[in-house]
């Protein structure tokens, strides 16, 4: 806490303004939930009546079912690949003292800094040549690239707080590097790896811009279908989809919180 250098009257204004801004940040997300239970097909708020019809539409329409399945396959694929490749890279960059280390790290976090429209047009261009447009494989690969920086940062942080000497001991007792990593290091950085995996899943599941460019029709993920629906018409099914996405998005922070608590407990 910092000693205040604001007189009480001004302080009240500050608190009021902060309250309003925080409301501005949270309210829009929350308003989607009651909208999804509306019985009307207009976007009036509060809804004139309540029903489950938009969830019914979502669950019965082939368009939304296909998109959900593409999204899940894409996000799971990207999660597995990004976690494996990202953890490998994080470990390699952590252990090595090679001169290329900094340059490689910079390269791998680059997808985080390049505007997504550029990743989108670049991938579109590359996939046109490779024949990967409108494929789940294509979506998995590009989302793996987009998620790797998150894995690199998360697992890298885990490795920095881990004592590498333990692995040295295992190796000096005859385990090779892979065995030493899998049996000694990995169990101790597992929370970082799980966090990284969850983060990659969410990043891939939520990605819109690249999906809009490189996928359409039957091979389009949920975000692409939502975007084109939003652009063309006002369909309250979006509110139902959005509510499900909000529910999905609250799971990882909760799991992470639980993991963090367990981590604290397991420490002496």
């Amino acid at each position: 806490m910092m000693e205040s250098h604001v007189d009480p009257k001004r302080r009240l204004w500050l608190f009021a303004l902060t309250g309003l801004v925080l409301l501005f940040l949270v309210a829009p997300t929350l308003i989607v939930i009651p909208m999804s239970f509306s019985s009307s097909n207009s976007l009036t708020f509060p809804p004139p009546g309540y029903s489950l019809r938009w969830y019914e539409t979502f669950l019965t329409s082939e368009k939304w079912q296909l998109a959900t399945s593409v999204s899940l396959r894409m996000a799971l694929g990207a999660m597995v690949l990004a976690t494996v490749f990202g953890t490998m890279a994080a470990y390699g960059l952590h252990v090595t003292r090679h001169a290329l280390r900094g340059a490689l790290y910079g390269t791998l976090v680059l997808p985080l800094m390049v505007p997504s429209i550029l990743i989108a047009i670049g991938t579109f261009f590359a996939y046109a040549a490779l024949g990967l447009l409108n494929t789940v494989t294509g979506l998995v690969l590009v989302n793996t690239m987009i998620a790797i920086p998150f894995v690199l940062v998360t697992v890298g942080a885990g490795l920095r707080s881990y004592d590498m000497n333990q692995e040295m001991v295992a190796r000096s007792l005859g385990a090779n590097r892979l065995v030493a990593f899998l049996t000694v290091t990995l169990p101790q950085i597992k929370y970082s790896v799980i966090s990284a995996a969850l983060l990659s899943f969410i990043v891939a599941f939520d990605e819109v811009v690249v999906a809009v460019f490189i996928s359409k029709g039957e091979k389009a993920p949920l975000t692409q279908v939502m975007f084109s629906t939003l652009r063309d018409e006002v369909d309250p099914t979006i509110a139902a989809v959005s509510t499900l996405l909000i529910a999905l998005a609250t799971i990882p922070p909760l799991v992470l919180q639980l993991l963090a608590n367990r981590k604290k407990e397991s420490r002496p």
Partner: protein
Amino acid sequence: MAGAIAFNTDLLARQEKRERANILRLALPASLLVLILLFVPIGWLMSLSFLGADGGLSFENYTRIWTEGAYVAIFVTTFQVSLWVTLICVLLGYPVAYTLNLLPEKISNILMLAVLIPCWTSLLVRTYAWLVLLQRRGVVNSALIDLGLIDQPLQLVHNMAGTVIGMVHIMLPFLVLPLYAAMRAIDGNLLRAAGNLGASPSRAFRDIFLPLSAPGLIAGAMLVFVMSLGFYITPVILGGGKVQMISQRIEASVSLFPTWGPASALAVVLLILTAAFLLLSWIAVRKLTPVETEAQ
């Protein structure tokens, strides 16, 4: 004897070198992905941007950007939107970070959730929410009419206002988070010392707190500005076709022109702008960070 030792160290050094290279190979799959999906296509697009419509070497894709009115207008709009978003984020974000910093850490950690929750929510969900809130008969307009502030509903969506509101909502956490971290790092004793030496609270704020929080503010503001330059989804949905930013033009060029030249020239310009502003903010933050804190 001495020779044997020298030989051994030599061998060890070579082994060590091989080991370093080997271990670095673990980063190979990830690097290959970035190479194939980012470096090669963007490099190729860069070279295509110098090809004219007739297939010869030309700068026509670039000269078009600053001679044709439509392109100039797109850059003006992009900068306008980005500046508005950055300005509003600073005006709203600074007091929020400041207040969170005044409060005990336990309370501000809970309030911080309000800043973090939107980050976890899909960008599309939030854009959709604003579409609902800002429409003619939406919550915002009815609230303003009920309060007697306006008689007729305002046009808040499908224009610049809607785009800026939606983008501020997405970008605000990117300003508040680094700024709050920077403010937490400021030593409260400095302000107390200023007070003891006779500085008024507003003077202590202006001469001590503001300069010390400046690096965090500049870093956050630059991040917001640079990220705003490349926005695509929000201007398309909340701008309703009336707000044309660079990204939309790139998308349009891909479908509009048979060659990649025009789209890639725009992409190159966006890439250069992004890199230039990031570099600028890095320099500014370094310059503004006091030497003492840097050494810590």
